[in-house]
């Protein structure tokens, strides 16, 4: 009952965020013009007002993909964060905790050394390298943490930390030794600070597909995820095949994170904060937490990205700066208000 109301409210909030995000922007086209373009292109009706050709381009090829991209990235990061926090029983866990961010960053750096003009479904070389780097790092962490067929939570967290610092050090080493990188630093900086870049709709279709499958799988796994709150032995006592379930959830969260990174770079804080904010208000039950976090993460990042592209228009602020600056205080407010029942 409460759950359905929450999901409905969050869905309405997401639709509102998408609408606001599409309606506002730096280019000289107001909500009225956007509405006309949308009616023209998405419904069989004729546009109610005259729209210029360039306005259509702005809405359909720039603004709408970016807004949808923000929603997908926000949902994927928040979902991955919620999965990892519950699985690892750790409030400090975020989508990057088991090495994805460092792997993605190193992958992106390496791709910048070689001036390859690769592109696949709109994903550039930097995105593909980041995707591969993130997944390779997780594989490395998982295998390092595994002893006698078991990867304990503590081992995963420690291996994640160790591998992350090794990969981060390797990245800095590349930056200071490879001359070619110096000129491409701004590109790398954009990636590291996070920023939604969408080149083609095909990218979004791919990420949306992954996110959809991820959401379905996450919902199917949500009861077992709850069992992990009792610890691994407690989960086993409730009939959960612990190692298999853990590997599945880790793979799922890592894929979601890697997919998000290809479109948004390394956006911090969303995956840590949104699941907490949702948990503080709606409780810890993963069956409600996972879909709620995905919806809230989507809305949050759409609005944060709106700020990123409009606050200093025509310049842009990295969206990671907005998520930290706005999200941090909001999160602290929630924490102080709903502290009850939270064992930190």
């Amino acid at each position, binding site marked *: 009952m409460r759950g359905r109301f929450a999901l409905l409210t969050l869905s309405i909030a997401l639709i509102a965020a998408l609408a606001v995000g599409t309606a506002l922007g730096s280019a000289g086209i107001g909500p009225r013009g956007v509405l006309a373009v949308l009616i023209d292109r998405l419904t069989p009706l004729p546009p109610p007002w005259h729209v210029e050709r360039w306005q259509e381009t702005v809405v359909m090829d720039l603004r709408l993909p970016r807004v949808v991209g923000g929603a997908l990235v926000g949902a994927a990061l928040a979902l991955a964060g919620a999965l990892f926090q519950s699985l690892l029983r750790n409030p400090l866990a975020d989508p990057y905790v088991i090495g994805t961010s460092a792997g993605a960053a190193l992958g992106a750096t390496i791709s910048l050394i070689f001036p390859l003009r690769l592109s696949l479904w709109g994903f550039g070389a930097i995105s593909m390298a980041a995707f591969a780097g993130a997944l390779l790092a997780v594989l490395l962490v998982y295998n390092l943490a595994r002893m006698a067929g078991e990867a304990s939570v503590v081992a995963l967290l420690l291996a994640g930390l160790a591998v992350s610092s090794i990969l981060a050090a390797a990245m800095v080493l590349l930056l200071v030794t490879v001359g070619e990188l110096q000129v491409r630093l701004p590109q790398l900086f954009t990636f590291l600070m996070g920023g939604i870049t969408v080149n083609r709709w095909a990218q979004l279709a791919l990420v949306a597909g992954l996110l959809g499958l991820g959401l379905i799988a996450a919902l199917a796994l949500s009861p077992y995820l709850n*069992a992990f709150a009792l610890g691994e032995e407690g989960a086993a006592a409730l009939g959960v095949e612990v190692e298999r379930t853990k590997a599945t959830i880790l793979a799922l969260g890592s894929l979601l994170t890697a997919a998000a990174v290809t479109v948004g770079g390394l956006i911090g804080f969303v995956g840590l904060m949104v699941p907490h904010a949702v948990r503080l208000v709606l409780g810890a039950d993963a069956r409600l937490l996972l879909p709620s976090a995905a919806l809230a993460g989507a809305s949050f990042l759409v609005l944060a990205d709106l700020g990123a592209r409009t606050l200093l228009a025509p310049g842009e602020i990295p969206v990671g700066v907005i998520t930290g600056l706005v999200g941090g205080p909001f999160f602290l407010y929630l924490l102080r208000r709903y502290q009850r029942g939270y064992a930190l």
Partner: protein
Amino acid sequence: MRAVLELEHVSFGYRRGRCVLQNVSLQVASGEVLALVGPNGVGKTTLLRLMAGLRRPWEGQLLLMGRDMALMSRREVARMVAVVPQEVHMPFPFTVRQVVELGRIPYVKPFALGGGYRDRTAVERALALLGLEELAHRPFVELSGGERRRVIIAMALAQEPQLLLLDEPTAHLDIGHQVEVMGLLLRLAHQGLAVVAALHDLNLAFQFAHRVALLHRGRLLGQGPPGEVLRPHLISEVYGVPLRLLRQDGHQVLVWDAPYDVPRQ
């Protein structure tokens, strides 16, 4: 009374060459409370883990309702055996009802997230049996130690098990709550459950257990009614301190048999 769990010549250790349990044979029947006793570190918790199917024995086998446990899935075992661990820490703000609902996980069907009628009645019954209705919406982390213990027992009962395993269910509880928990276990056994509890307090074992299994250095030294197994000279040797059995009004109480008055300051 039928045997719910039979252990046949079970040996086990965590590391190669270091045997924790040796050749343990034991039966647990429905309707009885079996107390596992023995000094710290003799393998009581390990034995409970084996009984719950959380570890596989090196040698010997465990029969759960007549079936070889090694051939059963985790889920199948969890529908028959429930475990109440000594301490439970919840990292996130689950409510009491949500914790009890965890007990239905062995019955979860994909995407039936709210659970069915049977799940809801099992949870309600468990909450009622432990008198937790009033607390159902409270966050688990806010409860006292005794209340938490009751919630975890309710979770275990929501599993609708045949066998209930408890690791020191009375640890850190005052005497009132100790008696309350042990009385509950007796009632559950009376309703047909098989109950195994690792206990430190031998007097609770005397008063509440139908049978006692005494473990020492990984071996089973004896099993049977408390009065037969917990003979003063045997347990004095096992625990390494002189103990004496006092009898009064049909009760038997073990006390330290002080050879002299202990000077107190």
